[in-house]
């Protein structure tokens, strides 16, 4: 139960890659860890890579939405990358469309999106 999902720092961006089917407590811990790390590192972006996730249920979906909202309040932007088509189809049918969550197809595109954002916000590259 002391298992935790690793959070990497890549320049100004925190990167989380979810590799396995996570139990609920680990999902909650990840949300809290990310908030902590945004503040301690001053990161301006968060990328959550869910390429490996076979399903996203309402619990994980809520974590993604909450993390986007929390990081925004801490002045960082969150992008979820790698969502599978079947997962997107299922989430909509479940009733969760993750309106407040930005997405990109790949890690590269997600990082580029955050980079573009930062340039716009700070006025420098």
């Amino acid at each position: 139960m002391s298992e935790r999902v690793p959070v990497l720092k890549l320049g100004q961006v925190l990167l989380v890659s979810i590799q396995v089917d996570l139990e609920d407590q680990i999902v909650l811990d990840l949300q809290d860890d990310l908030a902590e790390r945004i503040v301690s590192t001053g990161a301006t972006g968060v990328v959550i890579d869910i390429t490996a996730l076979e399903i996203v249920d309402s619990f994980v979906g809520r974590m993604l939405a909450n993390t986007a909202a929390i990081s925004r309040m801490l002045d960082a932007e969150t992008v979820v990358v790698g969502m599978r088509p079947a997962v997107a189809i299922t989430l909509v049918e479940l009733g969760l469309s993750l309106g407040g969550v930005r997405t990109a197809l790949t890690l590269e595109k997600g990082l580029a999106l955050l980079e573009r954002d930062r340039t716009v916000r700070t006025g420098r590259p």
Partner: protein
Amino acid sequence: MTGPRAVEDEQTVPIGSNDDVVRARQTVRTYAQQCGLSLVDQTKLVTAASELARNTLVYGGGGRMRCATVRNGARVGVHAVFEDNGPGIPDLDLALTDGWTSGSGMGLGLSGARRLVDEFALHSEPGSGTKVSVTKWAR
């Protein structure tokens, strides 16, 4: 609506912890793959199972899932039943309303699971537990 059926290879997964919810998802995925459900249908069924297993744990105080292959003539599908001896659900219609939760969830578990499967049945007696059965057929 549902004709004679054969239920095969039944397996029971106890649900008493968050780990068990993960195990329940994985068990359902294995059945879904063996029955030849499409990738999208597998994803829908496993997602529904995840919602229902979590409810069994959180609201039912723990219980079990029974999963099986089901046949009806030439059709094959996966059947999963989630049971607990918890407090039950006083108002089924309310519980099935999108967004309604008595706890801190999103209130999409029951209503969403119902949309994700082909057959859905919910039985609950206040004081004597809850039973939710779902079936998803291969196309």
